[in-house]
């Protein structure tokens, strides 16, 4: 154990956890990382490429090394940063990316082959042969290089989403964030304070400093209590703001409290904030030197954080000496504080010749660290000064190369951070997201006193913008902190000096990339993989840029940064899904007769969001086609019932409804008299066919337009656009009534007989209610209904509509009333079969690339009036398209007709040039006893009786077909007019 006194942990309680199966103990308040360090565990993982042993580097969100998998079974989660995992009783963690045990990783052999794995290795090596890539190279690379693995089981965790609309979003709860939230909260603004950590305070919890003469965490506790008491402030710990999006929208993920037994595991919040303050602090950078990746080498600020907040010092054995390698005064604070806590400090190695000791520890001024020793944990460091090198015993080395403000969120709109030569750091860009300002260490104001003051400055600016006065806020006094630093970026020399720990990128890799002409920083990133993966190079990027600048001889600002993109921290894909999974992944729409059909054993199919009955199997039927053939035969021989509620219904009224429809449909709709229905075709603006359906005129100023199921939404939108934007002068009113009315197709020669039994005193004779008639009426003793005599099947047929709540009852009544007529419910499969037999176009024919002429409806495009798409339909490319809808039947009736097959003249070489069309729809026709199809064929209308070849080159299929009329059944249309 390497616990020392103090810390913000609850020593009265212990928590048991396991790491790679070994049991350890920690305390409430610990993270997994601090608990492991407290147990003397330095080796926590293996590196991505070379499988080098790695230990905890940081104490926060930026951790590149200590990635672990939590839990087991379906709930296991990989790539979790041990520094961000709150320790809980029974926590089960495993290290990642090794073959065999963590201590004896067999893939560590990669490290021996390191000279071959230099920058650009993949690009250079796996070029050929091409066929090896998918089957050999990729699986190999994935096996050897990688992070955690998925469970391959459905995620059992619950996720949720939500929306917040504060006046102010404060991102980060360190000195600046707390002051800003407090000021805005006291001013009465609606404030959301988001903190990635489980506890508010940021670096105030880690620095060991005093505020108003008391430990800083005391002040944090007082402010936290006041914020919690303000009803207008919402404090959200364990919440990472991962992205800044347009219009003041921020994405955030809230992790449930570790002790929460119910509720969502994670919540995705969309926060629309009038203003935001980025107080995300800063990330310490390290200084690359030879073998600087040994477990036990960590950031100097992390060393201090572990000591102050978690009371651990990070050595494998208590009593091992601790050292600090720093180019700045802040690094000295770690040494001074550890020394003051009685930890043996071997010294501070500082490359600045003028450096002096700022506490009770030896100083190695003008010196650098040039090497490390130790197998899986640090045992000694090599200190070089004035050409002389000495090996000194050392159990933990803290490294500080200065601090990088966390400018990420301020740069998500492609703003480029600005280089500050005095602070040796990139500051937030001037052209960041509108409404967002940075404060505190994120803005380069890193000392405690400066951060407190800057938080107040930011709050004042925001409250000004919001029209609120800044309330009195007394800032606590903080001691001055020395802030000298030198522009010392890496220790030159032999061996490998690691820049990006997560991606195993060394100083040499950067030099090699430069040598290979990867001069742009974006190229450097792709060539070396620097700054990629889960940590996004938080501890590496700026150092790498500085080294790159060194090599190019350009100043750092000219070298530039790569583009910052969300997410700032890794987030799970599960939470981005927002919690909708399985059957509830998206809304499902059910027809009014859904439950009725379900009770009859119907098989359902998806039609967009709709669930439709596909067919109704009967006992003894062993194949779906038996069922469908029976249903189709029943319609042509007697009467069938099909729920067609899903077809779009648009109620259209107004003085100018008639004129409006005449412009929407390409065919003449103005002459449609009340009480009649007409088939209508709509074109898109570009002249292609858009949708077809019926238009029923119920009265002088009242129409009901029907659309296809798929286009119910698009047609409504199209009409709404025309109404509002194209012809606002017309008095037309639209509203969808698709769901309001249950509509049932009653089709077949006995349909009139059946309907006669339920309508209330309406004469349905052919003379009184002919083909394409419509009326409002009552049925079943007074229920208001609408009846349309229209036919998709080609038979005598009607569609009857009643208020949706009566749909199932009407279906049941029709079934009962038609029992002696052999009434049969039929599904979408028989519906499709019947319409193919009749040659009616559907979605497969109206695929957005077809014209009215192709459909054989060219003459419907009226030349006597203007309508949407009419002019464009006459342009050359469309008007000259010679493909026409035809029927297709196999020459050998035993052969299939396969939709999607392409059509060729017999004997030609099959190529794109000789392609004469394609098959759009096909089915087995029980009435003809063989397969039939519809398709578009070049000059199809002139090729009736000829033979064509239906080819499917992918499957090697080739079938001889005869071109026939698309109307396989009753081409004269006598049945539907009967």
């Amino acid at each position: 154990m390497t616990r020392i006194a103090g810390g913000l942990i609850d020593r009265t309680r212990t928590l048991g956890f396991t790491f790679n199966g070994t049991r350890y103990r920690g305390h409430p308040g610990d993270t997994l990382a601090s608990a492991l360090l407290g147990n003397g565990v330095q080796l926590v993982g293996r590196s991505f490429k070379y499988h080098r042993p790695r230990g905890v580097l940081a104490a926060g969100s930026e951790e590149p090394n200590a990635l672990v998998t939590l839990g087991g079974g379906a709930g296991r989660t990989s790539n979790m940063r041990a520094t961000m995992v709150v320790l809980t009783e029974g926590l089960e963690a495993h290290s990642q990316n090794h073959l065999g045990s963590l201590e004896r990783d067999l893939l560590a052999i990669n490290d021996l082959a390191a000279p071959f794995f230099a920058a650009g290795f993949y690009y250079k090596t796996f070029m050929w042969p091409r066929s090896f890539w998918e089957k050999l190279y990729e699986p190999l690379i994935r096996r050897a290089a990688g992070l955690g693995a998925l469970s391959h089981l459905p995620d059992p965790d619950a996720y949720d989403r939500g929306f917040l609309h504060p006046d102010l979003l404060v991102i980060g709860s360190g000195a600046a964030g707390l002051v800003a939230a407090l000021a805005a909260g006291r001013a009465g603004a609606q404030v959301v304070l988001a903190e990635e950590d489980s506890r508010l305070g940021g670096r105030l919890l880690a620095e060991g400093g005093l505020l108003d003469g008391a430990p800083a965490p005391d002040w944090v506790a007082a402010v936290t209590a006041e914020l919690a008491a303000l009803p207008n402030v919402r404090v959200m710990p364990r919440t990472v703001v991962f992205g800044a999006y347009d219009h003041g929208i921020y994405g955030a993920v809230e992790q449930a409290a570790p002790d929460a037994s119910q509720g969502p595991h994670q919540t995705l919040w969309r926060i629309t904030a009038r203003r935001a303050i980025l107080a995300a602090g800063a990330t310490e950078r390290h200084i690359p030197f030879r073998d600087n990746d040994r477990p036990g080498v960590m950031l100097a600020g992390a060393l201090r954080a572990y000591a102050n907040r978690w009371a651990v010092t990070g050595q494998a054995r208590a009593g091992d000496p601790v050292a600090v390698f720093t180019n700045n005064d802040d690094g000295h604070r770690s040494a001074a504080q550890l020394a003051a806590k009685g930890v043996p400090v071997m010294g501070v190695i500082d490359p600045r010749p003028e450096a002096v000791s700022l506490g009770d520890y030896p100083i190695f001024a003008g010196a650098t660290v040039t090497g490390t020793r130790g197998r899986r944990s640090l045992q000694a460091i090599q200190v070089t000064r004035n050409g002389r090198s000495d090996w000194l015993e050392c159990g933990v080395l803290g490294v500080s190369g200065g601090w990088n403000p966390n400018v990420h969120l301020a740069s998500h709109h492609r703003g480029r951070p600005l280089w500050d030569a005095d602070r040796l750091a990139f500051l937030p860009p001037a052209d960041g997201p509108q409404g967002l300002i940075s404060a505190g260490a994120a803005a380069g104001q890193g000392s405690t006193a400066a951060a407190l003051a800057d938080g107040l400055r930011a709050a004042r600016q925001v409250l000004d913008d919001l029209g609120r006065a800044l309330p009195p806020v007394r800032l606590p006094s903080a001691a001055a902190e020395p802030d000298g630093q030198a522009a010392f970026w890496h220790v030159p020399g032999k061996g490998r000096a690691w820049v990006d720990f997560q991606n195993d990128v060394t100083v040499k890799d950067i030099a090699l990339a430069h040598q290979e002409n990867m001069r742009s920083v974006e190229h450097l990133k792709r060539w070396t993989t620097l700054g990629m993966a889960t940590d996004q190079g938080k501890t590496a990027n700026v150092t790498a840029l500085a080294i790159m600048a060194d090599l190019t001889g350009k100043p750092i600002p000219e070298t530039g940064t790569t583009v910052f993109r969300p997410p700032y921290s890794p987030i799970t894909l599960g939470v981005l899904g927002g919690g909708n999974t399985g059957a509830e992944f998206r809304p499902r729409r059910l027809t009014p007769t859904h439950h009725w059909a379900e009770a009859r054993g119907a098989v359902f199919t998806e039609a967009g969001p709709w669930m439709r009955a596909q067919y109704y199997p009967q006992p003894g039927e062993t194949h779906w086609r038996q069922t469908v053939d029976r249903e189709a035969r029943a319609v042509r021989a007697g009467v069938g019932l099909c729920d067609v509620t899903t077809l779009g219904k648009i109620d259209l009224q107004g003085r100018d409804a008639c004129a409006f429809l005449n412009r929407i449909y390409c065919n003449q709709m103005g002459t449609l008299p009340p009480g009649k229905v007409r088939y209508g075709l709509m074109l898109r603006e570009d002249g292609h066919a858009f949708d077809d359906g019926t238009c029923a005129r119920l009265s002088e100023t009242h129409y009901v337009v029907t659309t296809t199921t798929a286009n119910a939404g698009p047609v409504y939108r199209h009409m709404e656009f025309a109404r509002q934007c194209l012809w606002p002068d017309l008095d037309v009113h639209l509203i969808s009534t698709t769901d309001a009315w249950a509509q049932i197709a009653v089709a077949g020669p006995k349909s009139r007989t059946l309907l006669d039994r339920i309508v209330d005193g309406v004469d349905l004779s052919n003379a009184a209610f002919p083909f394409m008639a419509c009326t409002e009426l009552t049925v079943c003793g007074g229920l208001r209904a609408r009846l349309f005599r229209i036919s998709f099947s080609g038979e005598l047929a009607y569609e009857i509509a009643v208020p949706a709540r009566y749909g199932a009852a009407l279906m049941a009544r029709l079934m009962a009333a038609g029992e002696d007529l052999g009434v049969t419910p039929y599904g979408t499969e028989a519906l499709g079969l019947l319409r193919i037999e009749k040659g009616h176009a559907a979605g497969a024919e109206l695929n957005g690339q077809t014209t009215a002429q192709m459909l054989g409806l060219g003459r419907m495009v009226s030349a006597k009036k203007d309508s949407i798409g009419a002019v464009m339909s006459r342009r050359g490319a469309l008007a000259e398209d010679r493909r026409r809808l035809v029927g297709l039947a196999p020459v050998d009736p035993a052969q299939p007709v396969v939709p999607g097959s392409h059509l060729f003249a017999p004997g030609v070489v099959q190529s794109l040039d000789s392609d004469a069309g394609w098959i759009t729809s096909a089915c087995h026709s029980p009435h003809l006893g063989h397969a039939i199809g519809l398709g578009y064929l070049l000059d199809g209308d002139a090729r009736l009786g000829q033979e064509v070849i239906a080819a499917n080159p992918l499957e090697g299929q080739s079938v001889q077909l005869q071109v026939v009329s698309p109307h396989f059944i009753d081409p004269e249309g006598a049945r539907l007019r009967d």
Partner: protein
Amino acid sequence: MTDLAPATAFGVAEPREQSFGTLSLRERPDLALASLALAEDPAPLPQPFGVTLPEPGRMALGDGGLAAVWMAPRQWMLLGEGAADDDFAACVVTAVPEACVTEQTDGWVAIDLQSDDGAAPLARLLERMVNLRPEALTAGCATRTLLAHQSVFVLRRAEDLVTFLGPRSAAGSLWHAVATAAQRLQG
């Protein structure tokens, strides 16, 4: 009167109900709906059944369970509690003969969300349901918005009462979304 038996949006005879702690959900099949649209006209707006036609984002309550909700420029939805068995649209036509009226009763499922503990539980639930500012959800507000991928009217009829109007065909999905959120709040 027809002898056909109506079914609720969930395909059964009785309205669906479910409680989650202080929150309860109740289907309202008795709620009659009719849309009302008016041609451009500088004349004052009519007041069907004495109900004022409200401004955008608002609803107006009348006597006898009547209410009106703004839907679009010069278009409103009229609500009549307990009137779903009547031809409500025909009554509206009688009241405002110059309007274009469309029956909407069965176009929607109406779900009441009632709180026994004032506004707070509703606020907590609504922030997980709809991307609307709390100001747009105070009593008397009515907004059409996206809820669980559906276009839904959120009617704040009172401090402790919200009514969701969603597409009737997707009633099960809407119920699932609201019930899941309510269930989680209870936890």
